[in-house]
């Protein structure tokens, strides 16, 4: 069931709220009601994969119990073995459904063989719920999470607002909320705030993202059919970049809003990433819950021994950079790339972004040295001017749009074709100009203005502690135009309008969220 569908908004959601309200304050019954509703929500898409989700929940709960038992008895080795076993089974499951076809196709190609296993369909949400479980197991092993009853665990794992495409939540963020006395009571304040956040997300998805996709899709789908020129290439890259942002951040707003309606605060997934002043900054603010997973469980464990090695060998300069930053960054970002899908476009997407990060890091080091030099010479250190910052933002955005071509293109050669056009090597053609209609200009301008000037959803809702980790982000990247939502006439009209337009635009057809493919 999609959040942006009539059956969800007018059917499932009101019924779910009513049922939870009806059994509020009944402890386990309230929780199991919400868990059952969540599983029903998942099964609506395809009941065939429900057993897989149920297995993942039960299996990881069981392994978590074993890990904790070993930790309590001081059996370090056994607890490590259990963690490795659990994570391996999770990864094997993900690997089979997500990467078996890709691996076999490439092996066949390489060896000239012709093995067939048939096309394996990707079960909805598997990348997300698998990562959530891996984080759970490692957190238990690291002593950052304490196992709880199965009732709370099942709800934590199945809770429908975050089930399909995140935010990827940590156990320690959600369980205390589920255990609190206040949980399960539907409160009018939470309902209102949640509904406004949900409406903003719905508007982003159906009004902005789906419209932008109508401009991006034809260009990406017919790459081989027509020559993509300079104009067409940039229209494709810019409209898709805006589409992807409004689509996924819209989805994340809806998830956060829905969680809030049930009294659960979910962590932020986006904080105006397209306003970032550099690629490193961008990755701190884009799909934040995936990013922190990657940093905690891949980048840091890789980078720590490599940096120790670099320090032991007294490496300096470029060799230190290559070992301490280059290698872990490349491995990490290739993992980020292929997490999105099995394909060479995603591998290259990872490599490209790792390259960006390294360039950003080198540049930062240079700036630091320059500052230090100026200080030694007694020269004043200038802060970056507004114009300079705008320049950083523009360069970053162009790099992101350039990279997103790989993210969207059906194949590497399609991406090359579009880059060829963007670089101006295919010239400017009449067909290219014809892609530049009033609609595409208007929607791109609206998208860019929203990104550049206006508050993001959580900044708009700042008076109501809009997300689990809002405190960490409330001071970051304040908007040029500061607007704050209040429950007065203006605020209510704004919320109603966003919801109304969001719902009206569903009628055009319900497009799946881009991240449901991952």
């Amino acid at each position, binding site marked *: 069931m999609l959040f942006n569908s009539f059956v969800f908004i007018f059917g499932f959601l009101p019924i779910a709220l009513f049922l939870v309200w009806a059994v509020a304050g009944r402890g386990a019954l309230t929780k199991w009601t919400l868990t059952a509703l969540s599983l029903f929500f998942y099964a609506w898409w395809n009941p065939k994969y429900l057993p897989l989700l149920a297995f993942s929940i039960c299996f990881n709960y069981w392994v978590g119990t074993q890990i904790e038992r070993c930790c309590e008895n001081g059996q370090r080795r056994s607890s490590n073995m259990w963690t490795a076993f659990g994570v391996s089974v999770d990864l094997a499951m993900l690997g089979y459904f997500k990467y078996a076809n890709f691996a076999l196709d490439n092996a066949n190609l390489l060896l000239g063989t012709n093995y067939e296993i048939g096309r394996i369909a990707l079960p909805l949400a598997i990348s997300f719920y698998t990562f959530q479980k891996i984080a759970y197991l490692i957190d238990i092993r690291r002593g950052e999470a304490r196992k709880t009853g199965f009732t709370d665990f099942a709800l934590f794992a199945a809770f429908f607002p975050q089930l399909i495409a995140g935010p990827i939540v940590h156990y320690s963020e959600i369980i205390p909320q589920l255990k609190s006395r206040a949980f399960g009571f539907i409160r009018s304040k939470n309902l209102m705030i949640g509904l406004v956040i949900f409406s903003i997300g719905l508007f982003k998805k159906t009004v902005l993202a789906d419209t932008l996709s109508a401009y991006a899709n034809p260009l990406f789908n017919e790459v081989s059919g027509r020559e993509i020129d300079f104009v067409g290439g940039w229209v494709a890259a810019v409209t898709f970049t805006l589409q992807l942002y409004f689509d996924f951040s819209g989805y994340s707003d809806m998830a956060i809003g829905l969680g809030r309606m049930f009294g659960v605060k979910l962590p932020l997934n986006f904080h105006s990433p397209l306003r970032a002043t550099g690629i*490193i900054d961008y990755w*701190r603010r884009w799909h934040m819950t995936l990013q922190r997973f990657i940093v905690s469980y891949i980048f*840091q464990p890789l980078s720590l021994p490599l940096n*120790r090695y670099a320090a032991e060998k007294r490496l300096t300069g470029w060799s230190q950079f290559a070992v301490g*930053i280059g290698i872990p960054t490349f491995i990490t970002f290739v993992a980020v790339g292929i997490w999105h899908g099995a394909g060479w476009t995603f591998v290259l997407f990872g490599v490209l972004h790792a390259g960006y990060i390294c360039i950003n890091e080198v540049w930062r080091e240079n700036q630091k040295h320059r500052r*230090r030099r100026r200080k030694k010479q007694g020269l004043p250190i200038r802060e970056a001017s507004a114009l300079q910052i705008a320049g950083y933002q523009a360069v970053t955005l162009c790099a992101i749009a350039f990279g997103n071509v790989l993210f969207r293109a059906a194949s590497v050669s399609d991406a090359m074709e579009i880059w060829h056009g963007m670089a101006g090597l295919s010239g400017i053609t009449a067909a290219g100009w014809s892609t530049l209609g009033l609609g595409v200009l208007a929607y791109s301008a609206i998208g860019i203005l929203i990104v550049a000037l206006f508050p993001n959803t959580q900044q708009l809702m700042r008076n109501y502690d809009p997300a689990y980790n809002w405190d960490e982000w409330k001071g970051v990247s304040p908007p040029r135009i500061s607007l704050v939502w209040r429950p007065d006439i203006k605020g209510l009209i704004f919320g109603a309008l966003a919801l109304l337009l969001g719902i009206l635009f569903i009628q055009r057809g319900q497009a799946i969220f881009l991240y449901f493919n991952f």
Partner: protein
Amino acid sequence: MNDEAILERLQEIMADVFDEDDLVVTRDTTAEDVEEWDSLSHIRLMVAIEREFNVKFTNAEIESLESVGDLVDKLKAKTS
């Protein structure tokens, strides 16, 4: 080693890693107070501290640090 002594040595290491000569570090300092302190430089800082104090951190310990105060406590426990 007492808190002040550890803090003093930490301040020196941090000034060097973050390249800020006049950095003032207290128990309450967190990553948010130092512009250069992010996940890339954090690892370099940890390795520099490991070498200076001749200790080793696990990933879990590095994850659990919230402030310089936590770091001082960890180091005190490890070096005593």
